[in-house]
Each structure stands twice: as C-alpha cells, then as structure tokens.
C-alpha cells in the first residue's frame, strides 16, 4: 500500500499519450494497473509519471483486419472483454479460454492484454500463448507505427520492445483456419492460481508452435520439439518422443514452489499435454 508521490496524466488521444510518454522522463503507461499499481505499492519500482490510457477508446476495440486474416485486439482490451468477445469466439477461442483463467474475476475486469504482456511477468498467461499463436504487436511512437513479432517483443521481466516514448497499441493474432488447434497447459498454485510452469501450443497445417512460460525471463520456444513434429504425427508416443530432452535444454529458475529440476520436468510434461490437446482440437 502507500505509493510514493507520482504525477498522473489522462490523455484523450493516442497521440497525446505518446507525447506525454516521450516528453517526460520516467513516464510509464498505466493500463489496468493490476500489476503496475501493486509493484508501486511495494515501492519496488516507482515511475515518475503515470499516463492513464483509460480514455483511449481506440485501444479498447477488438476488430478484424480488412482481409479477415488477423484479429486485432486493442492494448486496453480487458481479459473479461476477451472472454465475452464474439469476435474472439469466432477467430481464436483459445484467447478467451486462457483469459478466463487469469488471476481472478476482479483482476480480469481491470487487467488488459496490453498490460499483461508489457509486464511480462514470467508467470503471466498471454506471453507464451501469443508466442505460440505467432501474434504480432503494433507499437506506436511519434515516428509512426512499427510491428514486431511476439518473439521480438519480449525482452525480459518487465521489459519489452516498447521503448521510451512508445506505446503498444494493439496485438494482432492470426485468425483460426480449418485444421488449426490451440491449447495451453501447465501447473498452477491452486485452481486458476499463479503458473509454476505453463506451455502453449498451436497446431496448424504448417506445423506446430510451442512456447514455455515461467522457465526464463521471456517465453521460450520449444524449437527442437517443433522440428521433430514437423512430420505431423501427433500421436501420444510421437509427441512424447519429440518432447524428450526439452526439459534438459532449459535453465529455469528455482524458487519456493519448484526446483529448477522440477520446473524442467513440468515444462516437458506441459508441452506434451498442450500439443496433444491442440492436435486433438486441430482434428476438430
């Protein structure tokens, strides 16, 4: 509780928000605040200026790209919005399925997809999922827009490709095509609790993408496993064989909830479970 003194601004437009972020040293965008405000309570970090994005209606929209190939989710879209979105339901239901298990209802009502990924706490749900889904992030600054892939986006704990004076405006996820299936598996601290390890998988016509959470400061692609599954054999035996050695290839942190060894093991098990379920869903 009890935050340090901080300046607060509530811009009406994206451009204004970017201007404030650019013109103020130590300025930080405030989305849902479900992590940032907590970190400020602990005084573990203290931004000098908070730029509240609450009034930026553009960032609260969920829409399709013109060719319908991409689902664009505004950075200020809350988890609860994603859970209830008919667009998400049609285009990429896994997003709603996962969003519904983030923290708790109060947090989902305030917490946004933009905040969730910009924080990039290793235990967060969206980072590994979006890497697996091959999502891309659009970042805006005075110089205009740039788009980076999910892999390029995550740089470290609380660190992303969003630089000073920049603002994440939306997340774009490829819309589901026939023959795609997505799933997320893992072990949490109690039902819907904090992830100890998570794994997201997306199976599609052109192969599988697997991303592991909680094992590093950024989501880790299971590239070797993906390669081994290129043949498209998603039988339990094949998937388990493909995952063999995945755990050993990781260097996860150990903490009170899991030793590095246990995390490595869970990563392998979770990856297998995620791929198997994703494959099953891909078969429809």
């Amino acid at each position, binding site marked *: 509780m009890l935050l340090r003194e901080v300046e607060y601004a509530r811009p009406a437009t994206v451009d204004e928000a970017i201007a404030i972020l650019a013109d103020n040293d*130590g300025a930080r965008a405030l989305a849902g605040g479900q992590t940032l405000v907590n*970190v400020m309570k602990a*005084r573990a970090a203290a931004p000098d200026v908070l730029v509240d994005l609450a009034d930026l209606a553009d960032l609260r929209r969920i829409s399709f790209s013109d060719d319908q190939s991409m689902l664009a989710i505004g950075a200020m879209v809350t988890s609860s919005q994603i859970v209830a979105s008919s667009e998400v339901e049609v285009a990429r239901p896994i997003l709603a399925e996962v969003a519904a298990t983030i923290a708790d209802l109060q947090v989902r009502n305030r917490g946004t997809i933009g905040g969730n990924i910009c924080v990039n*706490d290793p235990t967060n749900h969206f980072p590994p999922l979006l890497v697996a889904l091959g999502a891309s992030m659009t970042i805006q600054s005075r110089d205009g827009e740039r788009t980076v892939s999910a892999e390029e986006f995550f740089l470290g704990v*609380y660190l992303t490709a969003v630089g000073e004076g920049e603002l994440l405006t939306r997340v774009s996820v490829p819309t589901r095509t026939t023959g795609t299936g997505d799933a997320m598996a893992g072990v949490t601290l109690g039902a819907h609790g904090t992830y100890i390890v998570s794994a997201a998988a997306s199976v599609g016509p052109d192969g599988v993408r697997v991303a592991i959470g*909680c094992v590093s400061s950024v989501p880790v692609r299971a590239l070797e496993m993906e390669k081994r599954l290129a043949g498209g054999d998603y039988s339990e035996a094949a998937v388990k064989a493909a995952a063999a050695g995945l755990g050993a290839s990781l260097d996860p942190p150990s903490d009170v909830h899991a030793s590095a060894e246990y995390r490595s093991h869970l990563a392998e098990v979770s990856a297998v479970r995620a791929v198997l379920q994703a494959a099953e869903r891909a078969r429809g």
Partner: protein
Amino acid sequence: MNVSGTKEFDAPRETVWAVLDDPAQMAQIMPGVESFTITDERHWQAKVKIPLGLGGLKMTIDFEKLAETPPDFASLNAKGKGVGALMNMTTEFRLRADSPDRTTMDWSADVKIAGPVGSMGQRVLQPIVNQQVGNVLSALEAQVQKAKSA
C-alpha cells in the same frame, strides 16, 4: 543467488584485462549508470538506475576491489543501497589466454538482494539478475572490441 558462466573474447587477454581493470570503462558496461566517482584505485561508487521496465530502480553502489593478480584474476564486492532494495554482490573472474588474440573469462557472482524488492519473489528476481548479467556481458563484449580497435 549464484550465477556463473564462461565468456570468450576475440581479443588479447591484456585488452580484456585493461577494460575490466579500469573503473571508468567498467562504468560503461554497467546498466543505467547515471554518475560515477572513483574514490581510489580500489574503491569507486556508482549511482545507477537499473532499468526494470516498470520504472527504474535507483541504487547507489559502492565497489571495492578485493583481490587481483594481473593480468588474469580479480574479485570485487559491490554493495548497493537503494530505496526498497539492498544488494550485496561478490564477483570474481579469471582470464585465460587461449591464443594471442583470444581470451576466455570464467566468471561467477554471488548476489544477495534484500528489502521490498527482495520480497517480490524469486520468480522475478532470478530472471531479472540473469538478464542484467546478460546485458553486462554483451556491453563488456562491445567495450572490449572498442578498446581493441582503439
């Protein structure tokens, strides 16, 4: 928390040593250094703002060189004091000249972090330390190359 590793440089040992032995150049490779003062050749102090994304973590770090045997071994202690965080790091490195212009560095560090930041939990602390170490090493790489071409 113990972190350690090995790093190879495409440069002579003397060059690498020169960089590591020079507080001024060390300042170049540390994250978010805002000011740097050298008390004497064994003691120096840095005011840093470690970039933590959610707003930097301001710290005053006092360095003390504990031991050195030029041109291959040194160990130093860094005590950081910041609002909400205390850091105590002891690190040492050993340089091996693999060839006239290739050097290998074995390094290790014992990092202790206390205070509210420490209470945020290892789940973020260990990755944060790893990522800061990574930044330092790549900055060192660059600094060595600079020194070499200089």
